[in-house]
């Protein structure tokens, strides 16, 4: 979309005519609004709950996999020598006409640190539940508008890294409305110490944000130089509306099985959709000075 078209749309927006009675309506409404305030305690809000949509959609909950056999069937993803495992805890499925959802909630088993295990599992469950609720709400909105249309969501998880030391679980959400968007979130666990590794916890101080960002920017530039079909939105690109400046201090990351730090971005976060979900392996020598130790990153 070139800027001229955007300017034209903006002009049309600015040209929306303001009716003369606007000021009158505004002033009258303010007086009424202030009056209503005084008696608002007497007004009870009534919420109308519509259940028709929920009833018409087939919902399958696979249930809690208390039996190990069933768990194996659902997801054949035993992870660590039978001790620490990632399983599908629950699956939400909607498959009706134009609405398809497949939401898999992972569960970590076998961590001795139960507090960590419970908090992660609870988080995954909430994420899944939230996605499911949001999806049902979206369907309801579409039905209400009578427009129809296709809605799809695919949510699942992959084990990115599983070494003696490290377990990195990535959860992805693919949202389909016309085209699709994908987001990735990771958790990385130190299996020996049984702790969750956060990005800031790897570094001595906050300077890693700038150093890593600079490295990613130069990687982006290099990639664009060597391959014309690759595009990232970075500073200096006139077309970019919100160019990439720096990573967030809590940017998505994982540690790969070679012990390298990998920074991940969502689809559309730093590049057009065609680039997918970019990942950048940060060379360890760039950050070695900043690391707390070389226990995880090598």
């Amino acid at each position: 979309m070139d800027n001229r078209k955007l300017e034209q749309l903006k002009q049309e927006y600015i040209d929306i005519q303001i009716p003369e009675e606007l000021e009158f309506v505004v002033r009258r409404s303010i007086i009424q609004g202030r009056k209503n305030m005084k008696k608002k305690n007497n007004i009870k809000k009534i919420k109308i709950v519509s259940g028709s949509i929920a009833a018409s959609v087939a919902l399958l909950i696979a249930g809690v996999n208390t039996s190990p056999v069933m768990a194996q069937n659902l997801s054949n993803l035993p992870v660590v020598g039978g001790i620490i495992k990632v399983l599908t805890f629950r699956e939400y499925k909607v498959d009706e006409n134009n609405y398809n959802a497949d939401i898999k909630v992972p569960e970590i088993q076998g961590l001795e640190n139960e507090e960590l295990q419970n908090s992660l599992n609870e988080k995954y469950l909430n994420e899944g539940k939230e996605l499911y609720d949001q999806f049902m709400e979206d369907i309801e909105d579409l039905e209400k508008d009578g427009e129809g249309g296709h809605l799809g969501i695919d949510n699942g998880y992959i084990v990115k890294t599983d070494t003696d030391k490290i377990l990195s679980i990535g959860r992805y959400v693919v949202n389909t409305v016309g085209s699709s968007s994908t987001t990735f979130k990771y958790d990385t666990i130190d299996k020996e110490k049984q702790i969750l590794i956060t990005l800031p916890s790897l570094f001595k101080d906050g300077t890693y944000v700038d150093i890593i960002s600079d490295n990613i920017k130069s990687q982006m530039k290099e990639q664009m130089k060597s391959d014309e079909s690759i595009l990232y939105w970075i500073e200096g690109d006139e077309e970019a509306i919100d160019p990439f400046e720096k990573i967030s201090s809590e940017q998505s990351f994982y540690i790969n099985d070679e012990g390298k730090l990998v920074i991940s971005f969502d689809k559309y976060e730093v590049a057009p959709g065609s680039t997918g979900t970019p990942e950048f392996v940060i060379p360890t020598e760039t950050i070695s000075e900043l690391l707390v130790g070389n226990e995880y990153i090598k």
Partner: protein
Amino acid sequence: MVNNLENQLEDFIIKNREPFYRLAYSYVKNVDDSLDVVQESIYKAFSSIDSLKDFGYIKIWFYRIVVNVSLDLLRKKKREIITDEDFLLANDTGTIDNYADIDLENALESLPEDYRSIIVLRFFEDLKLEEIAVILEKNISTVKTRLYKGLEMLRISMDD
């Protein structure tokens, strides 16, 4: 103190009534409904003034009310609008009207609500992505994604 906030809200609304009206109009597309949205939003603003913790957020807070009221009204009116369109079609004389760039405007209209809102708020109201995220109650990466998707969709439908 509270009274003071009410007065500030009143001043703010009077001062910014035109942007609010435009925003409402960008959703509901006619004068009467836009005025209704403005009126309803003002009622809502005063009755929920407790939820405005800090006057610094008043702009985002009020925009959010306007967007929600507009969407509510659109939903309520949906059936009637369809009837109106049928009526218009049935009575169409077939004369071709001349509108400049109706395609461009249509392209924007054809985007899903959220996508259109984000483009309107970002480019026409010059709001920051963070602010839009709060107004639309979405997280920032969703807003960003939808902004780019919206732009992509616009380009696709205009190039066709």
